[in-house]
């Protein structure tokens, strides 16, 4: 069954027990951290400050004095850009998924813009919006819209034909059909698109702040490097790692919550079989 479903089979660990379960994922990160701490303390090279200093900086600078002036603005830009991308991506995706002619006419243009490496869109965004917040939000939205858009189109196209026919048989109106059938049906795939968009948004916010900004995480990291303030630079990179990790966990939880009906319906379908 696993094989037929294309499910990944992660083999079990050769031993059992709660202790092994807790210990296995932890020993290597802990060992690495301790090694880094010991090495950075003993080598005394400018570029690699002691780990304790970096962690101290993470709390005192990134989560302290710079939290509201740099970290929060970056997060707001990301959230705004993503929100716009989600709305446009889903809306346009539904329209393009349903209108075959419209889809065929626009797809070469969309393919072309999507193919451009995202950073090259920054100069274009700067031409349109200058170097302020609106430029960054526009850039993030523009880059993040594509994975969401393409996934929505794909989901609409691969909608269950039985569902489609049921809709026509019960003469369900176009509006209801989109809102109650197509959109929920497309949700699992839309979420997969948003997940990709998340990673892209983090890249683009840091990149745009490095190239043209007076605040933000990316800006602060670059400035720290230029001032040879290594603790702040490493602290920022550490912050980004933690941020990316936490955001992806939050996203997974949201997905689990929003798509719980999907999981349940699948369960019942399997039970019926």
């Amino acid at each position: 069954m696993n094989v037929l479903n294309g499910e990944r089979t992660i083999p079990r660990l050769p031993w059992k027990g709660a202790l092994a379960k807790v210990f296995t994922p932890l020993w290597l990160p802990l060992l690495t951290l301790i090694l880094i701490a010991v090495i950075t303390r003993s080598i005394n090279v400018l570029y690699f400050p002691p780990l304790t200093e970096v962690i101290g900086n993470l709390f005192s600078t990134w989560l302290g004095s710079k939290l509201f002036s740099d970290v929060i603005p970056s997060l707001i830009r990301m959230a705004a850009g993503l929100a716009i991308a989600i709305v446009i991506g889903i809306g346009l995706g539904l329209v393009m998924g349903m209108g075959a002619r419209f889809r065929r006419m626009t797809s070469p243009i969309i393919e072309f813009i999507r193919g451009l490496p995202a950073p090259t869109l920054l100069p274009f965004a700067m031409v349109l919006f200058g170097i302020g917040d609106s430029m960054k939000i526009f850039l993030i939205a523009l880059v993040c819209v594509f994975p969401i858009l393409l996934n929505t189109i794909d989901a609409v196209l691969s909608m269950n034909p039985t569902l489609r026919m049921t809709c026509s048989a019960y003469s369900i109106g176009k509006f209801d059909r989109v809102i109650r059938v197509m959109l929920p049906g497309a949700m699992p795939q839309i979420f997969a698109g948003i997940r990709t968009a998340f990673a892209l948004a983090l890249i683009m916010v840091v990149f745009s702040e490095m190239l043209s900004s007076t605040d933000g995480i990316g800006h602060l990291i670059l400035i720290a490097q230029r001032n040879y303030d290594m603790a702040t630079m490493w602290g920022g990179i550490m912050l980004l790692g933690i941020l990316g990790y936490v955001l992806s966990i939050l996203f997974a939880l949201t997905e689990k919550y929003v798509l719980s009906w999907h999981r349940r319906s699948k369960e019942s379908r399997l039970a019926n079989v």
Partner: protein
Amino acid sequence: MTKLAELDPEVGQRRLAVAERRNVLGSWWRKGSADGFIGVLIALCVWELATQTGLLPSQYLPPVTTIAVELYEILTDPSLWVAIGWTLWGWALGLVIATLVAVPLGIFVGLSVFSYASLKPIIETLRSIPSVAWIPVIVLISGVNLNSVVYLAIYAAFWPLFIQAIYGVQDVNPVARSTANVFKLGRVSTFWHVILPSTTPYIATGIRIASTISLLVVVATSMVIGAPGLGMLISLAQSGGALPKMYALLFVMGVLALGLNYVILMVERKLLHWHSSQHTRKGISP
């Protein structure tokens, strides 16, 4: 188990790769290929008219014809070709070295349950850091030159390849594995005849993702640190106010990106023609 797998973040990513493989837009040139041309033509005409009549401010968007003239000029300029060469060099070197390192490592980690369970937290944390965040670090360590660009490209291209290789190994059909075991196929033969063939499609997808990421990072680094390449040219054109040139360069960049994508797909098709995933695909991505 299936429903949990649907929600597993890693499987979600793999599903995305499948969605990408199916390529939603890929068939535009086959069915009603005229529509695509008409769409592009309409867009270009509207663009030209709107900029000529002043409906769209031409300081933001020059007319298409101006950009076309500029495009012809830069195409005859050797400096563009040098920049393209540097960009391609960074992209290719990053991709090739990352593949050579990531695939064997990924296969090794995927085969060993213990090493996967131990490494997972580190992998997740490291790949959460956006690759551009390393630009300042790499500049400190290796300076403003093409090496920095290549190092970053390797680093960024490493992750999708590594993770795809791990998934590929873990996705080997357990029946096939047990069969190999029952027939007492040795470790080496099992690897060559069972594990490697079913892992290659995953690696192929990984190469496709890594190719995009490698190009992204090469261009981004070139823009931030001013290393030679297309990214820097585009940045310079914009900051110098040479808008037609910037748009012409964006066009060149887009064509280059699509071309690279096409080459990767073609190579994948040639190498994986025996695999079923190649027969279910609807169209070729342009």
